[in-house]
């Protein structure tokens, strides 16, 4: 990347003054599409796509301007306006452009724009357009149909804007606005086909599980505000080293809770599989390439806190290691192509979390794996969408097979993504994942052996399940009915983004590794001292590649060379457990849902019998007492007069007695 420095001389001096456009452009798109109503039906999707690209175009000169500056002066902060001024307390909304955020901005705008283009083709025959097949459409359906696509693009734009706000924010408070924004967009898009009840439930589930994580971020912000008095990254980074370790560990663990929610890490991983209910481009953009990596961004952005709180840092690495194995094991047994990819996403983000929990040694590999993963996983999701497009939305891989003969472009692009994710050199996944595995082996005592071992085994399992996915889909005997299915290649709007992403899957690792990404990121994440893994680097690399080769070979033997049964075999207890997502639902249900429901019932009972009983009893007693008092009001003026007279007599009598 340093080689670009010379090319950027022309753009030198361009400050971040117009960086707000990055967020504003897609936000404008969302506003126009949502407020414009059906008037924007005809041009809305194109406008949204154009604005997303415009955001990318704005990002380019910012990158060049940054590269033209000295590495120590690359981070620029630009205050937009005073957000919350209260007495002595000032909270400004500002943009922080540094090597870390610009990397994210480029990933989000580039992959996001490609997926906008892809969606133009993919959503063309959105189920909501064809759901009237075989019957007359009702007036309501006709009125809704065209607007659905516009709504989809509006949400996509909203997502891009929120995600950019998340990574560009210069304080935790503004980051949280973006954080909630992407959560909202994710919810809206998972439930995009909300006429299907299960999909709407999946959206709710994602939203609720994320709330748990958001509570963590909120609590972390409160703790930071209470002790540092500010929420902007600069002040927090300045005060963190002097703060007490206990506080830092607390803040770190709370931030980790937030990250596990957003990034579908153990123990808040259960929503990601169901989130595949959304349209495939959404799965590619939000639930593979960008939003789910926000947790990793949060951890890396909070490096000053985690570096001073080793306990919290270890917790991050352990969560990462657990999730990478968890996702890999679940991925082994899934027959739904999107759910298998979702499990793989979970596992790959586990790698990133593991790296982010290793300190300065790992940060750079976490971000690098995040970027390469953004390309190859988005590419594979788009490939899966292309397969579904040609196979009437079939997702069961046992019904695929031999599709390489019908979808050449999808096959090749997906194949490049597959080679990248299993870490075959020189494809991009190799460079980043190998870096993660090597860093996991750095350290003393038993920790490097456990973390490194998990990463190593994870690489082998990844190779097996991704090869299984690839071979089951594209190779072996065709297991679909030729009369029913007519597989065909997707239109250019879909294949071109896939091709671009597959180029990224193939080459991005090389570019980042040899282009000096490590030194580029150093000003933000700190310099890592020379480190030596507990095993020699060539041994680690050799072991990784050997495991990958074994995994891929086993998958080939079982799923390409041999016949794949169309109905899934019963399987051992382990297979059953993996198919059931290692019983995550059951665990959640027993640990959280049932006690929660019991508590709610108890509270309801106490409320109804205790509180309502007291209040209701009192009020009904007063009501009955006053209805008997009411009879005194008989309307006879003479009896009123008698009452008054007796009152006066009683008063006078009382006064007389008292005297």
């Amino acid at each position, binding site marked *: 990347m340093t080689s670009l420095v010379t090319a950027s001389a022309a753009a030198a001096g361009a400050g971040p003054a117009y960086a707000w456009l990055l967020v504003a452009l897609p936000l404008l798109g969302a506003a126009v599409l949502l407020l414009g109503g059906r008037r924007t039906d005809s041009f809305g999707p194109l406008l949204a796509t154009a604005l997303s690209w415009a955001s990318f175009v704005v990002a380019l000169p910012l990158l060049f301007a940054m590269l033209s500056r000295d590495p120590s002066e690359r981070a620029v902060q630009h205050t937009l306006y005073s957000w919350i001024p209260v007495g002595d307390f000032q909270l400004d909304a500002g943009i922080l452009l540094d090597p870390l955020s610009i990397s994210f901005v480029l990933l989000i705008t580039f992959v996001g724009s490609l997926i906008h283009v892809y969606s133009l083709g993919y959503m063309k025959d959105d189920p909501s357009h064809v759901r009237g097949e075989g019957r007359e459409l009702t007036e309501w359906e006709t009125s809704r149909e065209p607007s659905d696509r516009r709504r989809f693009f509006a949400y996509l734009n909203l997502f891009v804007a929120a995600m950019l706000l998340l990574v560009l924010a210069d304080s935790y408070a503004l980051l949280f606005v973006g954080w909630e924004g992407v959560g909202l967009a994710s919810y809206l898009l998972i439930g995009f086909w909300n006429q299907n009840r299960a999909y709407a439930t999946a959206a709710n589930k994602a939203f609720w599980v994320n709330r748990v994580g958001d509570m963590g971020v909120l609590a972390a912000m409160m703790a930071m505000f209470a002790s540092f008095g500010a929420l902007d990254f600069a002040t927090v980074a300045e005060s963190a080293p002097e703060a007490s370790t206990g506080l830092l560990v607390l803040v770190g663990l709370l931030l980790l809770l937030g990250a596990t929610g957003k990034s579908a890490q153990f123990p808040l991983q259960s929503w990601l599989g169901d989130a595949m209910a959304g349209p495939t481009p959404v799965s590619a953009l939000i639930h593979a390439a960008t939003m789910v990596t926000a947790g990793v961004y949060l951890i890396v952005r909070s490096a000053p806190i985690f570096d001073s709180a080793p306990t919290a840092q270890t917790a991050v690495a352990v969560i990462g290691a657990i999730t990478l194995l968890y996702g890999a094991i679940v991925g082994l047994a899934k027959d739904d192509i999107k759910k298998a990819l979702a499990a793989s996403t979970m596992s790959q983000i586990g790698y990133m979390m593991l790296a982010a929990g290793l300190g300065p040694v790992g940060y750079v590999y976490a971000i690098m794996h995040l970027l390469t993963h953004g390309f190859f996983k988005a590419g594979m999701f788009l490939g899966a969408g292309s397969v579904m497009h040609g196979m009437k939305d079939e997702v069961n891989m046992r019904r695929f097979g031999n599709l390489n003969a019908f979808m050449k472009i999808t096959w090749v692009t997906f194949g490049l993504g597959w080679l990248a994710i299993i870490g075959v050199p020189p494809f991009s996944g190799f460079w980043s994942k190998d870096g993660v595995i090597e860093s996991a082996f750095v350290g003393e005592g038993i920790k490097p052996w456990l973390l490194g071992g998990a990463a190593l085994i994870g690489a082998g399992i990844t190779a097996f399940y991704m090869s299984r996915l690839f071979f089951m889909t594209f190779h072996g005997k065709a297991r679909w009915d030729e009369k029913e299915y007519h597989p065909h290649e997707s239109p250019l709007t879909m294949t071109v983004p896939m091709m671009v992403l597959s180029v990224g899957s193939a080459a991005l690792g090389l570019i980042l590794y040899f282009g000096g990404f490590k030194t580029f990121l150093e000003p933000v994440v700190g310099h890592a001292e020379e480190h030596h893994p507990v095993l020699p680097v060539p041994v680690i690399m050799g072991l990784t590649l050997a495991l990958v080769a074994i995994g891929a070979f086993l998958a080939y033997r079982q799923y390409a060379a041999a016949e794949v049964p169309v109905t899934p075999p019963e399987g051992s207890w382990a297979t059953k457990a993996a198919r059931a997502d290692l019983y995550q639902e059951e665990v959640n249900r027993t640990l959280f849902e049932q006690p929660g429901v019991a508590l709610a019932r108890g509270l309801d009972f106490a409320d109804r019998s205790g509180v309502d009983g007291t209040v209701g009893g009192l009020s009904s007693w007063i009501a009955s007492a006053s209805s008997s008092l009411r*009879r*005194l*009001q*008989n*309307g*006879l*003026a*003479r009896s009123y*007069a008698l009452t008054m007279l007796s009152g006066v007599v009683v008063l006078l009598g009382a006064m007389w007695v008292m005297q």
Partner: protein
Amino acid sequence: MSLVNYIYLSAILFTIGGATVLLRRNAIIVFMGVELMLNAANLAFVTFARMHGSLEGQVIALFVMVVAAAEVVVGLAIIIMIFRSRRSASIDNVNLLKA
């Protein structure tokens, strides 16, 4: 003649007035009962003023007369309006305030 006799007379007049108000139905008669009570009170005021040799009681008696005159005007007007609408001056028939 002792001044106390005036007080006795005042008490007797007040009792007659109160009994009239409580026992008679005709609104005009009731009204007269009220007037009788007011004047019994006036008599008591004047007597006490005389007893204590101060003028306050006499002044208050004048005030009561003025207020009573005003009240008669309003009260009779109300009674006439009720009589016009109900064709009756019995106060037991005017019971719309019954709960």
